[in-house]
């Protein structure tokens, strides 16, 4: 079978793709200016006129970007749940997805019935890229199946329908391991699934638990071939470790941003995450100065959704920190790729250098004593002189914790160029947000 779901679009010539993207950018800018009060005000406040957008550079230079907080502010100001962004009467909305935010005031994605169908196309491209084929048995945590922002459309049977009517979807209850419920008793091992959507923390919980039971994960979850994971960027070493443990053919990393309904995922080459440039336009900016960045540089990812009309997103700052790749991938897809490392707000400033948790993780991972790189970065001030880290180590394989501390600090000094101060704590005492290790603990915000 072909590598591509939609070869014509996915391997479209770069020039044509850029042309198409620009055409759609102009259309969405005009549309938002004419139909959405939020954007009209935003553009006019900044002195931007949609008529001035003739080239891609015009678009980046003239159209202002905005972030989530601006929607929230507008919402408080007007009392409109959509912050006056909506371009259609509310009764035409077919569904609303809440964002992942747990801050009490959620933001939303609103889709009309037509848009759900439009969304199924890029979703199916990614599914195909992740080796999902007709007749496969898919395992997924249940909240991804029905309700939770873009995954639900991705796994929604709409996508499955496109792939063939003999697909079976098994919805298991993830997160039960947080209650001490053995993951091994969940559907994972029972159904010989071909593909699974597995949060990395559930995967690790499984491995630990199987180890306790004296079982090999390969035998405990037989037949599993491919896994897609999202939530945390996966390093090559971590991927190899997980693939080997589960005996997989491949492990794909995915990234998504719920508000502008944006998706990206790895292909078998594992060199960045593919987006669909005819559906989303991605660019990079410096998170602090809002300076425009080009390929090869690292910064905050800014998304323009090119197909959503009900609740459009034009130049939306995702607060995710990453890198953009413009070259054609080895797999033949010409669309842009991104590498997503961390939340932009997790990047700390140490002695004038920007340190991202992902860069630190690559170092920590080289030392198997650190429990799969379990650490927190402690941000005790806006500008810090030394990098403060809380981490835990495995007692069984660590001979001298003090020596290990020195070894890691030395590598941080030589590779990241900053002094590091490591404090050993038991794994249980590391900061976690519900289930994930909090990579950056911000003490400057408290109080």
């Amino acid at each position, binding site marked *: 079978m072909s590598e591509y779901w939609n070869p014509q679009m996915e391997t479209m010539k770069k020039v044509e793709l850029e042309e198409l993207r620009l055409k759609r950018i102009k259309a969405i800018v005009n549309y938002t200016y004419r139909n959405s009060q939020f954007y009209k005000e935003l553009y006019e406040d900044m002195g931007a006129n949609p008529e001035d957008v003739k080239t891609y550079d015009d678009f980046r230079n003239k159209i202002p970007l905005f972030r989530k907080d601006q929607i929230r502010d507008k919402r408080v100001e007007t009392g409109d749940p959509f912050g006056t962004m909506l371009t259609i009467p509310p009764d035409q909305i077919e569904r609303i997805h809440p964002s992942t935010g747990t801050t*009490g005031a959620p933001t939303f994605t609103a889709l009309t019935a037509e848009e759900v169908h439009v969304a199924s196309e890029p979703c199916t491209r990614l599914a195909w890229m992740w080796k999902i084929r007709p007749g496969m*048995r898919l395992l997924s945590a249940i909240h991804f199946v029905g309700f939770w922002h873009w995954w639900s459309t991705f796994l929604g049977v709409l996508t499955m329908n496109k792939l063939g009517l003999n697909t079976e979807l098994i919805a298991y209850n993830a997160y039960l391991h947080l209650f001490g419920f053995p993951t091994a008793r969940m*559907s994972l091992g029972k159904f010989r699934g071909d593909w699974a959507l597995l949060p990395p923390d559930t995967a690790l919980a499984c491995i630990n638990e199987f180890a306790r039971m004296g079982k090999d994960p390969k035998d405990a979850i037989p037949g599993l071939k491919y896994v897609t994971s999202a939530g945390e960027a996966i390093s090559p070493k971590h991927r190899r470790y997980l693939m080997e443990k589960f005996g997989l053919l491949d492990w794909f990393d995915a990234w998504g941003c719920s508000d502008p309904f944006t998706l990206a995922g790895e292909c078998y080459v594992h060199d960045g995450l593919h987006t669909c440039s005819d559906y989303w336009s991605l660019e990079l900016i410096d998170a602090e100065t809002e300076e425009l960045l080009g390929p090869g540089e690292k910064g905050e990812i800014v998304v323009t959704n090119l197909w959503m009309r009900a609740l459009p997103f034009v130049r939306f700052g995702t607060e995710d920190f990453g890198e953009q790749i413009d070259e054609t991938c080895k797999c033949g897809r010409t669309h842009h790729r991104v590498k997503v490392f961390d939340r932009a707000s997790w990047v700390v400033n140490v002695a004038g250098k920007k340190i991202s948790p992902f860069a630190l993780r690559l170092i920590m991972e080289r030392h198997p004593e650190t429990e799969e790189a379990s650490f927190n970065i402690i941000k005790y001030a806006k500008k810090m002189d030394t990098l403060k880290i809380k981490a835990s180590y495995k007692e069984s394989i660590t001979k001298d914790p003090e020596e290990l501390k020195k070894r890691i600090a030395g590598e941080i000094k030589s590779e990241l160029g900053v002094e590091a101060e490591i404090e050993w704590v038991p794994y249980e005492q590391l900061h976690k947000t519900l289930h994930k290790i909090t990579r950056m603990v911000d003490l400057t915000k408290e109080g």
Partner: protein
Amino acid sequence: MEIETLYNPEIEKMPRSEIEKLQLDRLKRQVKYVLNYSNMEREKLQDAGIREDSIKTLGDLAKIPTITLEEIRKKITDTGDPYGGTRCIGEGQFCVVFEIFDQAPPQKDPFYLTMTRGDFMNAVEMFTRYFTMIGVRKGDRMLIQGVVDPTDIYPAIINSTSLHLAPSVVEILGSLSLQIGIPMPRLLAAGIDGAKAFNWVKFFKSPVLVVSPEMVNQIAAIAEMEGIKAKDLGVKIIVYPDHKNLLKPSKRRELQEIWNAEVYSMLCNSETALHAIECREHAGLHVWEDLYLVEAVDSKSGNPVSEGETGKLTITNLYAQGTPLLRYVTDIDVKLDKTVCKCGRTHVRILSRDYKEE
């Protein structure tokens, strides 16, 4: 003007004799179906000497052996088949499988409910009739528990839009569903979810709440903390789900007082996908008898109790193709009332054991 509350009048007001004729036809079909495809049910039926032609009247239902979750769990352990031999459709067929646990956090192995497209269509029909009955209207916003709790499947049925298995209840009604919740079982995320739900209700002025009882209480509590009366949130209809107990009239009056809204008790059984909701008369929970055959049985003998007596609610699913169960015994004590309801619906109603006419 009288608001139309009948979605499918022909079925909902069908005379009892016709309902029973329809049930007999469907029961015969289900028996034939499970004899052909369900390992678990075939074994049980054959042991009891039941063949395809054994069911001649509805009275013959009592000949069919009852089945319990314990039996299915035992079968799962004995055979290693995660479905315990209850699944009737083969591999490579289009379906969705739900993992259902006894409680959160779970104590026992899960039951796997398989739903085909047809199963979904029927379940959607069931809920569309209910929601029309309790007065959900076009344009109404419904706040629905978005997290599938390890024990609940009703959000998946009401919101089948996400699954595209069937036209969803909200699509048919022309209402808009608001799905709340982060991907966490409700116990863990209780505080967070309550705040979120409160915001949704406030923002969208959602007149219908279909959320867990805990959530209903939390929204009211948070509203109070914010200095808003629950009454002023504009909620008109609250559906109050439970797995075992029916809402007590005193509790209902208390909730109605707090919210100034109509409160409807809902009984959920995930293994058979049976859901029962009260009508405006609050005289028992309606069950659609064209879709389910319910009995109150004596838990020792497995025989139906005489009319008006209390017994364990026993459910026969008359449409399921995925994992159909015949005479599935639950742990819920009920009385059944087959008289015509004041609302005009002829279908059977489930009453709690201590039900008294108000």
